[in-house]
């Protein structure tokens, strides 16, 4: 009896630890590019924007990315996703 309770506790703990290790920041930002709302993807897009010629597209994209970063800081992944998508749309104009 004690062994089965112990086994249940251990396996439950392992299961919980496994679930907890799944990245909480995953959110697909752009269906074509399958980018996630995380620091690496945001840095990559900021590098893309940095290399753009000055103009409305660059300004819009930069603003959207700033908002995406703010959303990520506030753990609003859907919001982050939406702004990253808007930034990509602006970059492709």
């Amino acid at each position: 009896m004690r062994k089965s309770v112990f086994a249940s506790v251990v396996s439950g703990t392992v299961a919980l630890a496994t679930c907890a290790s799944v990245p909480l920041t995953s959110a697909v930002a752009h269906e074509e590019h399958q980018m996630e709302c995380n620091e690496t993807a945001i840095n990559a897009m900021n590098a893309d924007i940095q290399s753009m010629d000055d103009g409305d597209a660059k300004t819009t994209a930069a603003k959207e990315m700033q908002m995406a970063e703010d959303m990520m800081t506030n753990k609003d992944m859907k919001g982050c996703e939406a702004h990253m998508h808007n930034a990509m749309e602006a970059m492709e104009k």
Partner: protein
Amino acid sequence: MSGAASRSKRGWILTALGVVAALVAACALAIYAGVYNFAADIPHTQPVYWLLETARERSIAVRAADVVVPDDLGDPKRIASGAGQYAEMCSFCHLAPGMKRTEISRGLYPRAPELRRGGDLTPAEEFWVVKHGVKMTGMPAWGVTHSDEILWDVVAFLRKLPELTPDEYQALVKSAPKTHDEMMQEMESRPMDHEGH
């Protein structure tokens, strides 16, 4: 000069030298400690980016000033030849009409400019960049392995590239008189023409 004024002046000089020495020491320490992150997946800060971009643009402009541009860059044969070279040598990084971003184009830093969108460089500056490359970027010096004639063909194509649709681009590439390998074999059979710029 009176003794007091002289001592005061010496004091200022020593102070200035001390400040300079401290700054140099601080910079050396920062470099040795690896403070600045050179990862290609983390962009430069904006001031550093501006500094590097400006230095690069000015360097290219100054050195390209003496480049003599051929007057036949509009020749369809040059453009077709350049299209073939571009497809083989350039498109993986700089992309082409209708082309999705490649893995290398997404990972390079600084980003290789998407030349299908046009740019600010003059023909002379484009030639200089293609020939000499750019330090600390992924842009190779194609002049090490290619003649000026081939590089001018590429420049001729670059002037045309922003106007092309994906279908026009593909048609132009197919119309290239020689493949890249054929052009290299022909070039290797005769001395390279480099006009000293």
